[in-house]
């Protein structure tokens, strides 16, 4: 094949860079993050301080959890576009039910639609073999419809943000955002699940070669159904965290996070075709996107320009990873 495969020492600089990127995707990502922060510091000297870092972390965490949903679904070759709707539903139901209900009951009610949507997604993708993109788009449309109907039944009772969500979303403990209390266990759990458990291995196996996984006895539909339910649950929890951060329940609360969550997972090195990637890269991807958003806001780039940029990032990074995989 290529010379780089047989004689690594003779490989060109570009070839070595590619191999390096493929073997240690985290290092270039961290370098990119540092460069972005440095640009920010040059444009607005003094902006990078403790408060800014805490603030960046606060906004990066909901994005990172949603990107976790994308990472896990992408590992199987899927995608979950319903996370925005699920997060919005959970947040909205929580904020409106807390008015008359016990917090525990409100929490269960808020998680119910998340589980249901996850289940429908999982059955649609796993059993009926609908493309995940189309399936999750469809359930998010149905979910939005339900939310609109639901909204009219609670207009009279009003909405309130529970104190503990406020504390979780915006509070600081010794300069660290309280959201870390939620995020660190979630992140550890995701990384542990992906790297050290049988379920995690199944996700990689299914994404890498579905046929081989099936022939070795993997029950495809069970794996996929469990995966989409977990993804939806995570999205629901993110919604609760996000409402504590944004503090204004609306019917499109978490929609703006969907596109960046896909972009964060793709930047983090997770292949959209399945079988490659991990959650650590995604976390750094979410941080990069949050810093990038701050940078674009300082440069007065409108929302439209931001979307265009994110779209190009997804396309460019995917094409680049495809080249790396082809070279191996």
């Amino acid at each position, binding site marked *: 094949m290529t010379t780089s495969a047989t004689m690594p020492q003779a490989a060109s600089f570009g070839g070595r860079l590619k191999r390096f990127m493929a073997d240690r995707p985290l290092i270039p990502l961290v370098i990119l993050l540092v460069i972005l922060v440095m640009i920010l510091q040059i444009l607005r000297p003094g902006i990078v301080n403790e408060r800014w870092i805490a603030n960046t972390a606060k906004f990066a965490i909901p994005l990172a959890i949603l990107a976790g949903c994308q990472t896990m679904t992408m590992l199987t070759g899927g995608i979950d576009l319903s996370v925005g709707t699920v997060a919005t539903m959970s947040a909205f139901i929580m904020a409106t039910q807390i008015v008359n209900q016990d917090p525990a009951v409100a929490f269960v009610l808020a998680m119910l639609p998340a589980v249901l949507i996850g289940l429908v997604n999982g059955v649609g993708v796993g059993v009926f073999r609908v493309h995940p993109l*189309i399936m999750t788009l469809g359930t998010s449309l149905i979910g939005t419809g339900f939310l609109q109907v639901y909204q009219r039944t609670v207009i009279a009772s009003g909405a309130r943000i529970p104190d503990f969500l406020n504390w979780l979303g915006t509070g600081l403990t010794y300069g660290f955002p309280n959201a870390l209390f939620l995020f660190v266990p979630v992140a550890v759990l995701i990384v542990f699940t992906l790297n050290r458990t049988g379920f995690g291995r199944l996700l990689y196996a299914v994404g890498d070669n579905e046929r081989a996984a099936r022939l070795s006895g993997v029950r495809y539909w069970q794996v996929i159904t469990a995966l989409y339910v977990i993804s939806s649950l995570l999205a629901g929890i993110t919604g609760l965290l996000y409402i504590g951060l944004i503090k204004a329940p609306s019917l499109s609360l978490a929609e703006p996070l969907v596109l960046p969550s896909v972009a964060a997972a793709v930047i983090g090195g997770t292949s959209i075709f399945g079988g490659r990637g991990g959650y650590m890269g995604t976390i750094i991807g979410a941080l990069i996107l949050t810093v990038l958003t701050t940078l674009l806001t300082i440069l007065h780039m409108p929302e*439209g320009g*931001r979307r265009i940029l994110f779209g190009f990032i997804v396309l460019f990074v995917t094409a680049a990873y495809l080249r790396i995989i082809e070279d191996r």
Partner: protein
Amino acid sequence: MTRFLRNQGWVAGLLALLIFLFVVTRLIQPGYGSGDFGSLVRAVLPYAFAVAAQTVVVIAGGIDLSVAAMMALTSVTAASMMNGASEEYAFFVVPFVLAMGLVLGALNGLLIVVTRVPDIVVTLATLFVLQGAALLVLDAPGGAAAEWLKATVVGTMPIPGLPDWTDAWVPKALVLLVVCLFVVWLPLRRSRLGLSIYAIGSNELAAFRSGVPVARTRIFAYALSGLFAALGGLSLTISTGIGAPIPGPYLLASVAAVVLGGVALGGGKGGLLGPIIAVFVLRLVRTDLTLLAIDPNVTTIIEGAIMVAVVMFGAFITIRGRPAGATP
């Protein structure tokens, strides 16, 4: 020959379903007349073009997720160009917007061919880009449409030699739809290029080995899809009088109608007539639900559920149609 019969059988069945739905509509609302039919066709117009756009790429063995975003971009471009401009200026706007759709669609195809990234990822990325561009053109619904353009979809078409009551059932919007779609589609289907589109959809390798220029044909299919999407965007601007930067649910609707219209999602099969009848069926169901005085938000849920069910059914048929043990 049997395939021909089966395809025509599917279309005939759909037509019967449509007629059945019209009868049901008459039973629900005995006064349902030509005027209501006219407004049905006007509502169908953007959906029909979206479906046409999707059909072409699906036949070519791909999928275009950017259809709705393309419609939004062309719609706001047309609306903002015609805003405050003279009536004659619209003669320039229409070809400009159509050319824009054609070029952007071709760009979609070019990106797929050049980057070798799967179509679903590329068009997802262009969905983001086009949506962002639409927001840059107009950040809120606005703009205007020329009066003579609006007149092309309102009212009925007088046909010489036919009694007035027949004319009443021929809305201008229907004439516009038929002319725009079939003037492009019918000659194409008979041509070498049309055959190539079917060929790369049913077996790309076989098509390549028989000398079909696969890359060029694919780019052309996406360009045609862009042209149809631009027609859809224009029809949106014309029928509402403004342009809206946030796309409607046209993507899911287009995929559902393609499946319902008997076009296999794998490619290479089906025609344009089936999906167009399917759009009428889906819209008429919505009309019936509205006539039954069901809450419009509930209607959205039912409609979404029907579309998801149709897509699931289509996917199910596709796996059933494959030889046992084969994976997609």
